[in-house]
């Protein structure tokens, strides 16, 4: 294995900033995203969506639609077989196909505005639209519920008659919207609060927010008469798409070949399926390929945001700054079907801190909103926002610098995480120190300005991963990975391959293989790609090197163990091995046919030992007390990357997380009318940050190597979105002189808070 941090070796490619291999295609428009794929004879697929938030589907009549000239297929609930509600293991995921099928195409009821009800494939978009208008759906509208607290009330409209609260004690005896209750305990909070000299308790609320990827969902599918299928789609995990779609459509997994397109953002929202099974079912019925592309409105109305939530937090501390107990109770909106990220929300809530007494309870709650999907560090930003807000308030209460307070309680190697196990080497303290020592933290503020600090944690994961490395006749290499490249992984994997092989980065050509070209590979998510595919790349390269040494040994007529690989060439391991001129990779590749055949490496692993990520963010804001507008003046991120393989992409992840967090904290929210219909399904009215809303985000890369990775890599893609909500809330609170407990802190809410403070109503 290569040295973790260059110790003893100079790293030539790892840690450098080479140009990304996909860069030219991206900036010239050659790169093919989901909607750029076309097949000969393809039909246009369109979806009919619910105009109700909650209604029984009494009947669907497609007869008129089927008669429209050009219409080749119409599908409804009758075209996708139902499946039992028990979870089924799909790769590394546990999937409830009963729920998934109902989300993809409604059966007994529609459960949210925009819920898919039927789909049409036609020779033109005009014919497809006309057919959609002629599908007669007889709805019986039902009362709906959108708010998490209202959904939990005993008299709330119940979405699912078969949903009984899992984990309830005593067991639930009637259905409700509370899908699950979970509880985590460490120590004894009653004892901890008795030891406290200061105890604060507050309630917080956050709104659902969308991942906001620029590229809408898109795919093209073809199912042939002999049952073979091909699917091109914009996804974070084409192997997962293959497994899910094959089961839904009734195909053998290997009969379906899925190719991941270039992807215009996912952030977790493209780890699930929406259009793909519909396109396959339409193609199967029509006998033609079918292409489907969502509009932005469809993306907002029918694809997963992350949860909104209510969170109550209570923290006790001594006056010298030691936290004695932490308690939180949180309810997360799951959307129309169970499965909010409340579990990780509970586990992460107090994870940045070394606490002896923690009690956390969470509820997974369904409502008449689109089913949530993963969004960077799912669940963590929400709970950690609440905890970081109260941490800041406790620090104020005892008169302690907010970073010093965190430093006094920070998790470190050997700390038992609030969710159980001990941490190995971690960088939480290093990120706090980096922020404290920054020029930013030591710069004075002006009037109406406030400064906020927030820390955050995310687990990061590994998982099943395959990589192949083929050496071409000229000594160049083709690296094939199964993880779609979202954040620059083709570059980072090539850097690790080049480092191992001792060849130039430009001599490695990376591609993303389709599902028929590699073994099962879990999706791009959980901040796992540089870690897992990197580990697999190193192993594949090691296999290649072993074979190269064996070929050199054959040529020299010496044992393979007497050959070593250094600087891209085979050399005798020492004087006893004999005196031979080194053989370069080019020379060995050129003669490969004569020495045993092509030289390849393949790694098929289940990567374990992901290193947890910690970060601390610092932000300055200015509040216009006349309009309520919050301007982000300055922002600095410090985060532990383990080892930054390509520092520019690490910085990009840090900056992107901060920007998405700014939107989440200040502006983004779904607006629903009293009728339960979404009123802002577009970027004009759903206010995400644009370039003029954010300053340059400064970054500090902390490197505490993960001992479980050959180069020390930790995932970096998710942790950066955890601290911003708390950091910005703290900054705004300091600027206006009153604590705000709800996100987004949009101008009307800020004005209300400022007015309340002026009237002496602040807390």
């Amino acid at each position, binding site marked *: 294995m290569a040295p973790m941090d260059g110790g003893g070796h100079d790293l030539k490619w790892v840690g450098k900033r080479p140009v990304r291999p996909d860069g030219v295609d991206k900036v010239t428009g050659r790169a093919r995203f989901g909607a750029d794929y076309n097949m000969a004879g393809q039909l246009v697929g369109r979806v009919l969506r619910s105009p109700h938030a909650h209604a029984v589907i009494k009947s669907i009549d497609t007869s008129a639609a089927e008669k429209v000239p050009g219409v080749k297929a119409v599908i409804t609930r009758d075209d996708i077989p139902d499946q039992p509600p028990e979870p089924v293991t799909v790769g590394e995921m*546990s999937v409830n196909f009963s729920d998934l099928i109902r989300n993809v195409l409604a059966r007994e009821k529609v459960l949210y505005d925009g819920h898919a009800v039927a789909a049409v494939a036609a020779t033109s978009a005009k014919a497809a639209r006309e057919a959609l208008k002629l599908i007669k759906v007889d709805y019986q509208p039902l009362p709906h519920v959108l708010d998490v607290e209202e959904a939990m009330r005993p008299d709330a409209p119940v979405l699912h008659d078969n949903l009984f609260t899992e984990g309830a004690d005593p067991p639930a005896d009637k259905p409700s919207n509370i899908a699950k209750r*979970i509880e985590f305990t460490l120590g004894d909070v009653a004892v901890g609060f008795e030891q406290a000299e200061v105890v604060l308790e507050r309630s917080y609320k956050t709104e659902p927010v969308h991942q906001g990827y620029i590229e809408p969902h898109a795919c093209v599918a073809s199912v042939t008469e002999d049952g073979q299928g091909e699917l091109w789609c914009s996804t974070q995990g084409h192997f997962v798409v293959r497994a899910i779609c094959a089961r839904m459509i009734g195909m053998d997994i290997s009969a379906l070949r899925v190719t991941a397109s270039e992807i215009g953002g996912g952030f977790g929202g493209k*780890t699930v399926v929406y259009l793909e099974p519909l396109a396959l079912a339409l193609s199967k019925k029509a006998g033609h390929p079918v292409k489907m592309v969502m509009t932005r409105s469809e993306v907002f109305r029918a694809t997963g945001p992350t949860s909104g939530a209510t969170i109550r937090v209570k923290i006790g501390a001594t006056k010298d700054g030691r936290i004695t107990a932490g308690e939180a109770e949180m309810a997360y909106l799951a959307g129309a079907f169970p499965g909010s990220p409340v579990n990780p929300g509970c586990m992460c809530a107090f994870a940045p801190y070394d606490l002896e007494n923690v009690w956390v309870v969470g509820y997974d709650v369904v409502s008449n909103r689109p089913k949530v999907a993963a*969004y960077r560090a799912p669940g963590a930003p929400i709970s950690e926002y609440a905890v970081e807000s109260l941490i800041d308030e406790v620090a104020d209460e005892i008169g302690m610098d907010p970073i010093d307070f965190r430093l006094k309680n920070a998790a470190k190697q050997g700390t038992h995480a609030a969710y159980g*196990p001990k941490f*190995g080497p971690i960088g939480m303290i290093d990120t706090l120190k980096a922020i404290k020592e920054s020029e930013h933290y030591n710069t004075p503020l002006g009037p109406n300005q406030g400064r906020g600090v927030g820390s955050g944690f995310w687990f990061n*994961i590994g998982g099943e991963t395959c990589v192949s490395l083929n050496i071409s006749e000229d000594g160049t290499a083709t690296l094939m990975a199964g993880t779609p490249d979202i954040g620059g992984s083709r570059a980072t994997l090539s850097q690790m391959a080049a480092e191992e092989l001792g060849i130039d980065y430009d001599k490695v050509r990376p591609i993303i293989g389709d599902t028929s070209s590699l073994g099962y590979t879990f999706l791009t998510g959980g901040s796992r790609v540089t870690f897992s595919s990197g580990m697999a790349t190193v192993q594949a390269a090691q296999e290649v090197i072993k074979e190269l040494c064996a070929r050199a040994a054959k040529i020299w007529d010496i044992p393979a163990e007497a050959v070593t690989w250094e600087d891209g060439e085979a050399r005798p391991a020492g004087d006893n091995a004999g005196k031979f001129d080194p053989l370069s990779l080019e020379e060995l590749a050129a003669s490969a046919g004569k020495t045993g055949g092509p030289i390849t490496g393949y790694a098929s692993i289940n990567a*374990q030992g992901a290193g947890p990520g910690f970060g601390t963010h610092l932000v300055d804001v200015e509040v216009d007390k006349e309009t309520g507008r919050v301007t982000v003046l300055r922002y600095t991120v410090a985060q532990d990357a383990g080892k930054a393989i390509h520092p520019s992409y690490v910085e990009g992840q840090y900056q992107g997380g901060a920007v998405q967090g700014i939107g989440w904290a200040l502006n983004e929210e779904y607006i629903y009318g009293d009728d339960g219909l979404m009123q802002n399904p577009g970027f004009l009215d759903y206010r995400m940050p644009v370039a003029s809303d954010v300053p340059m985000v400064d970054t500090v890369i902390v490197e505490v190597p993960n001992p479980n990775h050959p180069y020390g890599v930790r995932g970096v893609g998710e942790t950066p979105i955890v601290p911003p909500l708390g950091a910005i809330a703290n900054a705004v609170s300091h600027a206006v002189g009153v604590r705000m407990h709800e996100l987004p802190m949009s101008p009307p809410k800020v004005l209300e808070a400022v007015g309340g403070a002026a009237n002496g109503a602040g807390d």
Partner: protein
Amino acid sequence: MARVVLTGNLAKLADGEAELDLDVSSVRQLLRVLGDRHPRLKPHLEKGLAVAINGTIYQEAWLEAIPPDGEVFLMPQIGGG
């Protein structure tokens, strides 16, 4: 004996037995022993869990070794976005 701790709702399904000392040498053996001892846990063990062994988290890793004096935590499976 490995010290095994059940977190979250798992302890409830084990009749409140949140901490156990078990003579197990692999994750697969651990899951089998736990399932036999607490049948209500079985479906949850089969559904997929994360297992932390001496601080390192493993997922879907039946063959991972558990040292005799290992500290083991069973937790909900971790995903991501």
